[in-house]
């Protein structure tokens, strides 16, 4: 634990991620104002004791919108990474355990999906089903599946070639038992590090989709849509475009630093090479 706290990337990342999670948890119970409360008389107010970061063009409190908006980023991150991990790891482990045509099929399917970045999938899904939080979670989640499938397969292959797996097979354990007892515990570290990175990418992708109007819809506040609304007021109220961007950048920075730190701490060999 003390080694972890002395690692600068890990410590800085942990603080930033704790702030993000703390903000989301706090906003579940309390925010200075209800984030959707409109007060036209108090619109575009500068920062003050009543409104710490000021108000937007409809008089809504910026600090409250930022706080509640963090729920959205975390929800998308957790669900999109969850979809990628859940489906991807099962496919990747199955490919490594079975080999042959199963492996070929899974890997070729993973190859094909690289032609569809998350935004293209989101565009197709939005064209049919309309914009919304569910569409963006689905698009980012689908994009994550091949990422985890490839990683799980490659890492699982390395485990399958170890002597203790050979011993387990000789003892009569089947491929599923071996995957559960030996492969998964040994590839968990790599998967956790990748999950942190994909979480950061999911926050970026959700913000982009919401900025474009394809993601979270009003009245639910989201950092991406706040930036979109702020862009029309760059001349009158430039700071409106600074706060949500800063919130996104700090969250992503925190997750990336945490991922880097975890990789070094969980696999010290890599840290020495860098």
């Amino acid at each position, binding site marked *: 634990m003390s080694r972890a706290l002395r690692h600068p990337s890990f410590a800085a990342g942990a603080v930033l991620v704790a702030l993000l999670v703390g903000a989301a948890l706090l906003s579940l119970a309390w925010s200075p104002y209800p984030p959707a409360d409109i007060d036209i008389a108090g619109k575009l107010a500068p920062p003050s004791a009543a409104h710490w970061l000021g108000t937007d063009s409809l008089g809504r409190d910026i600090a409250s919108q930022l706080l509640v908006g963090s729920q959205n980023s975390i929800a998308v991150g957790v669900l999109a990474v969850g979809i990628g991990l859940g489906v991807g790891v099962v496919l990747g482990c199955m490919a490594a355990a079975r080999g042959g045509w199963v492996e070929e099929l899974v890997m070729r399917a993973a*190859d*094909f999906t*690289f*032609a*569809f*970045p*998350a*935004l*293209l999938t989101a*565009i*197709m*899904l*939005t*064209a*049919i*089903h309309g914009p919304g939080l569910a569409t963006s979670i689905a698009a980012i989640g689908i994009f994550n599946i091949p990422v985890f499938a490839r990683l799980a397969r490659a890492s699982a292959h390395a485990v399958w070639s170890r002597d203790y797996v050979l011993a387990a097979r000789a003892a009569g354990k089947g491929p599923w038992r071996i995957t559960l007892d030996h492969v998964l515990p040994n590839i968990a570290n790599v998967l956790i590090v990748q999950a942190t990175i994909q979480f*950061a990418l999911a926050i*970026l992708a959700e*913000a*982009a989709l919401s*900025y*474009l109007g*394809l993601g979270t819809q009003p009245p639910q506040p989201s950092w991406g849509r706040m*930036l979109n609304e*702020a*862009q029309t007021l*760059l*001349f009158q109220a*430039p700071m409106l*475009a*600074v706060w*949500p*961007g800063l919130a*996104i*950048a*700090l969250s*992503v*920075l925190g997750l*990336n*630093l945490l991922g880097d730190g975890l990789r070094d701490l969980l696999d010290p060999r890599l840290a020495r090479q*860098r």
Partner: protein
Amino acid sequence: MTAFLLRRLGTFAATLVAASMIVFAVLELLPGRPAEVMLGDTATPEAIAALEARLGLDRPAPQRYAAWVGGLLRGDSAMSYAYDTPTFELIAERLVVSLPLALLAMALTVAVALAAGLYAASHHRRAGDTGVMVLSQIGLAIPNFWLAILLIMLFAVHLQWVGAGGFPGWSGDDGGGLGAGLAALVLPALSLAAVQAAILARVTRSSVLEAMREDWVRTARAKGLSRRQVLWRHVLRNAMVPVLTIMGLQFANLITGAIIVENVFVLPGIGRLVFQAIANRDLVLVRDVVMLLAAIVVLVNFVVDVLYAVVDPRLRRATAGDAA
């Protein structure tokens, strides 16, 4: 080399076919009839049937798929539902903005990333290296559309050097021209390139560092070559394989990034087109634009695969060995 090229070409074609099937399946076969989506909730069954007949949607799916792909291959595209113009014409009009934007952004990315990555590697564990790594960590965290807004705030609102968006066109007759057109693309390209350069600089740095640890570097130094000569003649070429891989993958990011950044700067490119198409519920246009973007991503990865083999002959033999 020929066998390698043929194998890669086969994979390229298969990937394109699979991508076209995915696009077709998502946009035309998933629940929700396309004609209903296009006409909205208030459409009468007669209007839906009439539009289905007009777009050929009343035919069986395999026939529609064959007609679509056949049209794409002959260069004879479907009519956009909202614009009543062949989709290829609409796309070609917009590509003259999007393609130069993506290429300018890629050029900026490569120039900045290679310089920063090489500098960091040759100053390993010194202040310059740390500086590059910190900057790249920040670059990774900044969303491109936020950077775009910040650049507009600085250069258009505060300094008033450039307009806040829009595109004057490449031709002098429309009030634009080469200089004015390029000037309108500089800020969008910068906002696209910053994140990509951050990623590529890190890859270049670690790849060069790895190559510098090889035995042949020591041999070359022992032979009397200077550090600089070894770096330029030997290390760089060997470090290029991972750098090329990432560059290929980055092109996909640039294309999707361009969709977002074009919307920030109100550039009349492919990104704006696809958004107007979604707003107009023009599924025909959405389908063809998405297919084009997917095809560009696949094509760039194919070109990168072939480039690997040129840079590193071992890869050619390794793949030939796999096939045997």
